[in-house]
């Protein structure tokens, strides 16, 4: 009885403290525009909604499906142009700053400072959440992009270890090809080509080279011989893909690895969700390792807060920001989503071995300065520049263009996108 009472009392205390945050009496209210609509994602959002309601808030859900966020972006643009911005919207990477420059984002520094975000978040990731000196977005999760997934049985049957250099990868792929296995499962969609490309680029250019090329757009690095080598490796990768790859969805490629048709796939850690859903065990049925080379390419989902009128909505923003970065939500959400918490202090006891590896690598690369934004997933560059690079990558991958021509085309495309 006493325990129950205590429990109830502490619940009330939590609610009271959250509400107190929200400036006195205003009842927190939030309209949240997001594109988490598929099974696992929708479940993850439901967690946030419950926590928001438990904090005394009213949540208005505005999910917009389709186009990997394109449709949500269009809806958001229409809302902002009509002067009726949502309280918060799922936006990531440099798009946050792009929206800030339009003068429509709100300042949530009070919440960030009260909750000590600058200590909790890796510095590189915190940088994305800041607009000039203020905090304007709250990070939700960290997806690692530079993963290589493998079918354990196929590898052991062919006497192959997980490759740690691209030369090893090529040797393994040649061996698999000779044995009649498709070395690399891949879907011929532009963003998938770009995902493989950036993993290769990170391995060959190194962390500094990657930053110069795809964050700073340094033309010397872009036109360098190393970049030619990156395209050479891409040409090799093209040879390791089956002939029917065009237009294939990424999860079908994952299925090819699962059923042993193919050996490897280079894809972000959302691929893990597919393995898990099929009841496969990491380390036994399938293997995960970072792609050859030093570094960690992250894809961080976040909520940007928009300038809104009214205490209730501003209270909603504060509550939402506090909850999103809160330890309990970070754990539950990321378990559902297959990503890892963005906070460095969340215990990973319930997470699988791939997630633990991801988290360890994130901490290590944060120390070593090789924690880098993924260009292919819109974290490193704005849409026009990232799109220009992807156009070149996919044009090279789907033709017999020479590496030198590809590098020249890449430089032109980037210059033309400015």
């Amino acid at each position, binding site marked *: 009885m006493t325990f129950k009472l205590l429990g109830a009392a502490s619940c009330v205390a939590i609610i009271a403290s959250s509400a107190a945050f929200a400036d006195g009496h205003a009842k927190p209210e939030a309209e949240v525009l997001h594109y988490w609509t598929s099974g696992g994602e929708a479940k993850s959002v439901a967690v946030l909604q419950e926590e928001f309601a438990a904090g005394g808030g009213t949540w208005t859900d505005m999910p917009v499906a389709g186009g990997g966020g*394109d449709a949500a972006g269009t809806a958001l643009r229409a809302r902002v142009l009509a002067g009726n911005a949502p309280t918060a919207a799922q936006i990531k990477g440099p798009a946050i700053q792009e929206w800030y420059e339009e003068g429509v984002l709100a300042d949530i520094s009070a919440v960030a400072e009260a909750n000590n975000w600058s200590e909790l978040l890796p510095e590189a990731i915190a940088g994305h959440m800041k607009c000039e000196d203020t905090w304007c977005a709250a990070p939700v999760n960290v997806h690692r992009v530079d993963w290589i997934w493998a079918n354990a049985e196929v590898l052991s049957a062919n006497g192959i270890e997980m490759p740690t250099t691209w030369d090893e990868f090529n040797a393994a792929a040649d061996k698999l090809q000779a044995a009649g296995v498709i070395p690399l499962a891949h879907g011929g969609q532009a963003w998938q080509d770009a995902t493989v490309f950036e993993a290769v680029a990170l391995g060959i250019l190194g962390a500094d080279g990657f930053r110069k090329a795809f964050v700073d757009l340094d033309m010397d690095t872009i036109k360098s011989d190393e970049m030619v080598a990156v395209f050479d490796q891409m040409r090799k990768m093209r040879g390791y893909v089956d002939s029917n790859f*065009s237009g294939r969805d990424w999860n079908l490629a994952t299925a090819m690895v699962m059923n042993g048709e193919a050996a490897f796939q280079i894809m972000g850690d959302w691929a893990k969700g597919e393995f898990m859903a099929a009841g496969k065990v990491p380390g036994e049925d399938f293997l995960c390792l970072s792609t050859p080379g030093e570094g960690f390419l992250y894809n961080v989902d976040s909520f940007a807060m928009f300038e809104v009128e009214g205490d209730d909505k501003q209270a909603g923003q504060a509550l939402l920001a506090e909850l999103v970065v809160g330890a309990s939500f970070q754990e539950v959400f990321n378990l559902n989503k297959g990503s890892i918490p963005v906070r460095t202090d969340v215990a990973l006891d319930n997470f699988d071995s791939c997630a633990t590896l991801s988290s360890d690598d994130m901490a290590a690369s944060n120390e070593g300065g090789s924690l880098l934004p993924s260009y292919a997933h819109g974290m490193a560059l704005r*849409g026009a520049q990232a799109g220009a690079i992807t*156009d070149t990558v996919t044009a090279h991958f789907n033709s017999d263009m020479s590496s030198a021509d590809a590098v020249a085309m890449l430089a032109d495309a980037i210059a033309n*996108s400015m």
Partner: protein
Amino acid sequence: MTKWLEEHMPKLVLAPSFIIVLIFVYGFIGWTAWVSLTRSRLLPKYEIDGFIQYDRLFSSPRWETAFSNLFVFGFLFIVIAMILGLTLAILLDQNIRTEGAIRTIYLYPMALSMIVTGTAWKWILNPGLGLEATVRGWGFENFTFNWLVDPDMAIYTVVIAAIWQSSGFVMALFLAGLRSVDQEIIRAAQIDGIPTWRVYTAIIIPAMAPIFLSAFIVLSHLAIKSFDLVIALTGGGPGYATDLPATYMYTMAFSRGDIGQAASSAMIMMMVVFAIVVPYLYSELRVKDD
């Protein structure tokens, strides 16, 4: 008062739709033209900055592909759909018994949306699932039909699917045209002992010139605005080999936050439409003046 009403009634009744068209068609064309001269990115901006977006557009290799695809696709689609439609119409015109049923069968693809057509043909043409796999399954191990995944040939798969969708409709247009040709002339020709093929080439087809023009206009606007078929069939791929101006514009406006670039490509598309429609309008209006 009644007299005034009588005089002005047509104008009053037409005014609302006139105003709506003025704003929502020509007003927005003007808006797009304006934005195409600015450096608009994520949201539209209104400071004019010259023809920078058109410079960017014409130095983009992706636009080059999209624009030349429009002509490859448009030309083949219009010509083949017209030839096929005319042939089907002439064959159906031979007083065959089950004409009604056959006509419905040929017209039926028109009842499907381009998305359905695109998805169905994606499976049919997929080398691992469709035609190629089936024929190989019959024992012809060397049979290859991989146009869908070949960047140089993929645009022709779009042509195939579009023709399949539209030639039945063109057939219906031509069939109506064939029936409207004066039967007396045809009978007279037959009495004179002129062979049937000569009747068609010398009398019926020349008499159908207006139908050709209508079919051409309908097909060419279908070709220029083609979007959903490409999205469903190839997704613009492999790479961007099957991009068309409409898909280019969509990508720029909605995926890349590059509204200025999208607006300039939209203006070029409109100019292509004008290049076709203006001569048509001119010829139509001139005929009425005679």
